[in-house]
């Protein structure tokens, strides 16, 4: 048994859900994505990252989770679509802590976010695995 460590995330925060955050699929931002990645039409799949960044602040501010964002690196990312995002639509972004594992002082957290449309349909689920590197390492 190891001692609880203030430098690490709190494993008991697994399962935490956060209030929905509104996100508009802003046509000007979508156009900037298309221009950057040479895509001529539609909403680029990784545009969903903009919705994730709308909901991240409440995860980072969650003192129960105790994630030190200055030590975080992005481990992996996945997007699964029920349908494509539509330019101009309003979505609700619901974040949850899907899993937390601590190994060798490094914390591995999977943050899942559902993007719901006005009818309550989850149009996309985003999963980010973040790695909180050991403090002082």
């Amino acid at each position, binding site marked *: 048994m190891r001692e609880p460590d203030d430098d690490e995330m709190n494993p008991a925060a697994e399962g935490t859900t956060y209030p929905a955050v509104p996100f508009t699929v802003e046509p000007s931002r979508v156009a900037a*994505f298309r221009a950057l990645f040479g895509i001529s039409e539609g909403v680029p799949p990784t545009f969903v990252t903009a919705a994730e960044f709308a909901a991240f602040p409440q995860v980072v501010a969650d003192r129960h989770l105790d994630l030190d964002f200055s030590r975080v690196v992005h481990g992996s*990312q996945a997007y699964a679509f029920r349908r494509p995002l539509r330019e101009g639509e309003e979505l609700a972004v619901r974040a949850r802590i899907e899993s937390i594992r601590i190994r060798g002082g490094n914390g591995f957290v999977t943050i899942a976010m559902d993007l719901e449309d006005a009818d309550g349909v989850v149009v996309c689920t985003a999963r980010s695995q973040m790695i909180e590197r050991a403090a002082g390492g």
Partner: protein
Amino acid sequence: MRSRAAVSVGDELPELARVVTREDVKAYADAGGDQNPLHQDDAFARSAGFPGIIAHGMFTMGHMAAAVVAWAGEPDAVLAVSAQFRAPVFMGETIVAGGQVRSIEDRPAIALLETWVRVERDGRTEWPVKKGEARVRLA
């Protein structure tokens, strides 16, 4: 959308190369919303142990997804994309996205792709900085 009849297991995606520039990374920060100074401030990046700023992992993943979209024919045909982030990418480096059809599902017709991004660094290839998968609907 790409036709099922035109796709076979083992098909390769056309490679997509780009040079990573500060201007593009800054434009990405503004469009994507990730204003972490690690991607804009060299002094900050050095304090984090890097020789200079690095591209957002999502910038490189966005490039990988662009190769998938180009192959799929349209973004709406892309049902899923995922990536593991394995190494940082620095300014001035060339990233090359590619992929291959690993399997095909029928009814509905969907291609499962293995994807990657490799980086040309100091005249040699480091491979890969990203590995990923994608599911693409076929017509």
